[in-house]
């Protein structure tokens, strides 16, 4: 094995790091947490203008999937607002893989400019993990479709230009087989976005679709072929596009804080043996998380679909992140409770933030239970429970 990056990847990473050093200002970070929108169109546009975005579309162009991994890993490690961009580039990849020329011209090219966003419309209030049971209806009416229903957890819908929307087009066949995907402009009449505030800083949305009419050209993939389109998206998503190294910025923030914080036992917190042990354990977990993610990228780069490997990376990384957050919040005591902007807040409030944010990481993008089912059945070959 060779863990050195190729010269091209080294250059690409250096360019991303340089970009981050220049563009990821305190204002950008403060703004993302103040608004709850982990997406910054100016930042995205600058990334595109710097030529760093084309490689971020999975399966598109001549860039290595390793570069896709590098881009999102660097953004995640730096604590940049990348969530909206990751979803957008994921959709770009799906559009590229299964879309028509119309989609590519009308959507993909725009997405590559960094000035537009997409969001994902899969889950519904009553159908989360069991997404194959969704009930949002799309009914054909001549050359058009009429869509009615509601989606939940449509994060970034309020800043998005398109949504990829999973609908039921045939209720009379087994549930996976009657689904169709659409790529819907968000300004289509009949779409309403309602904010859903959360316990962390980030905002998500519920979206409502009331007799939304779109032409058949906005269909993405085959009629009743929506499940396959989702499969493409999932294979792109799991593990490679951020979300598996959240403890890197946490560790950096805690380390930087601990060097200057007084310990009740005397000296600094950085001299506390238990904190040192836990910093080291977190550093190990961060390496492992990165390697599991890199492996998923490597499989994609060598022509495979790293669905299972992504599940493993997510299971490992999110569990360790939650453990680390719990450790550091306990060790920081009362100061670890204090929020962004409060004097004396441990790690400038990052511990409070991470403690609020961490719980959702074992839910979104596939719950721990769904990922464990995946690994148990598909990797270990254990008999299905249901």
């Amino acid at each position: 094995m060779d863990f050195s990056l190729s010269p091209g990847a080294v250059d690409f990473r250096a360019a991303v790091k340089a970009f981050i050093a220049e563009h990821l200002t305190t204002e950008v970070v403060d703004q993302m947490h103040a608004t709850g929108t982990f997406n910054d169109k100016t930042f995205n546009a600058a990334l595109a203008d710097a030529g760093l975005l084309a490689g971020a579309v999975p399966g598109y162009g001549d860039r290595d999937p390793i570069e896709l991994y590098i881009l999102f890993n660097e953004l995640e490690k730096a604590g940049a607002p990348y969530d909206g961009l990751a979803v957008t580039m994921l959709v770009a990849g799906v559009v590229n893989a299964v879309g028509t020329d119309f989609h590519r011209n009308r959507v993909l090219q725009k997405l590559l400019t960094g000035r537009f966003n997409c969001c994902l419309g899969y889950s519904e209030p009553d159908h989360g993990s069991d997404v194959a049971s969704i009930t949002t209806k799309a009914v054909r009416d001549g050359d058009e479709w009429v869509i009615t229903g509601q989606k939940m957890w449509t994060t970034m819908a309020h800043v998005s230009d398109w949504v990829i929307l999973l609908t039921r087009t045939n209720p009379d066949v087994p549930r996976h087989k009657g689904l169709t995907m659409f790529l819907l402009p968000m300004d289509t009449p009949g779409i309403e976005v309602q904010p859903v505030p959360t316990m962390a800083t980030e905002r998500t949305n519920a979206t409502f679709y009331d007799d939304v009419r779109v032409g058949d050209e906005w269909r993405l993939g085959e009629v009743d072929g929506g499940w396959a389109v989702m499969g493409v998206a999932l294979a792109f998503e799991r593990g490679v596009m951020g979300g598996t190294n959240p403890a890197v910025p946490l560790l950096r923030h805690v380390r930087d804080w601990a060097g200057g914080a007084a310990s009740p036992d005397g000296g600094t917190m950085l001299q506390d043996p238990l904190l040192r042990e836990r910093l080291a354990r977190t550093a190990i977990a961060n390496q492992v998380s990165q390697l599991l993610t890199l492996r998923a990228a490597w499989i994609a780069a060598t022509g495979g679909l790293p669905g299972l490997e992504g599940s493993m990376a997510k299971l490992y990384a999110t569990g360790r992140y939650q453990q680390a957050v719990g450790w550091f919040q306990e060790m920081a005591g009362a100061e670890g409770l204090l929020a962004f902007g409060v004097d004396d807040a441990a790690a400038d409030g990052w511990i409070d933030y991470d403690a609020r944010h961490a719980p959702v990481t074992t839910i979104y993008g596939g719950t721990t239970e769904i990922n464990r089912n995946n690994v148990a059945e598909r990797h270990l070959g254990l008999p299905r429970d249901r």
Partner: protein
Amino acid sequence: MDLDLTEDQESIRDVFADFFSSETGPEQAREAEPLGFDSRAWDRLLETGAPGMGVAESSGGGGANLADLAVVVEEAGAHIAALPLVDHMVTTRLLARVGACDDDVLAGTTIVGLAIRPPQDGTARTVPSGAVARQVVALDGDALVLVDSDPGAHLQNHGCLPLAHRPLAGATVLAKGPDAAAAYHLALDEWRTLTASTLVGITRTALNLGVDYARERRQFGRPIGSFQAIQHLLADLPGLLDGARLLTAKAAWAGDRAVAGQTGVADIGDNEITDFATLACMALVSAGEAATTATDRSLHVHGGYGFSEEYDIQLYFRRARALTVVLDDPARECRRLADMLLTRHATGTTA
């Protein structure tokens, strides 16, 4: 040996369960955020006599013991009451013990609180009731002091506790010397015990919320609570809950014995612990862990909804963590406990 509540305690529990269930709860807790003080509910609470109920009747209080108070505050925790009840109760008892508890404090019209951490540079930091209490009692060196001043500027925090720093400038000295320190430490152990009981209440409701959600929420054509993965996530919690409640009750029992002058033992070699300071520390660590684990798992069972502000579990989740660490890192509490367990020899008589 009697592991049931007394009849009196059952009445107390019923009365306060009714009170907190009608006057406090998730909606009121939300409205009280971020400060974490529901002044309307506090005003209503004065009518129940709760603020002074832990003070002897001879001193004008309600004559309740620590075990009784634990019953009250478990209900407050279960209903996520945004009230500085634990802090007021233990500080009131402390003031009464040093003969400095006036009627407004007994009645609760003046809110009092305890500085639970050693002051630094003349300031009591992150006092749990510091943003709402008028009077704060602290141990400054070997002096028990009381500062009477406007509540401090609220420090916005994870659990929406009314935290504030309180400068001790101009504080009155209530007592000095070993007795003053002993009185303070007794109060702090009472604070540990009652905070543990609050956490037990939080644990109880968090478990109920998770179980209710798991029974109602359906995915894949069946309640998610019928999946073994969900069942087993929840099945460890009743033991944690009941264990923490029993240990907290034992701490309260030991506290009442200590107040009555009976010493206890702490012999880990024989697992024989009746010493109050030891049990209070154990109860807080145990209840903190129960509450942290139960709120975490219950929130997870809620899926994405657990993360949304609309659902109640996140309120419990954040308060569980806040109350668990506001005194100190539980690992450091354990090391303090080890200091007690490993250097002290078993003393006194066996229970």
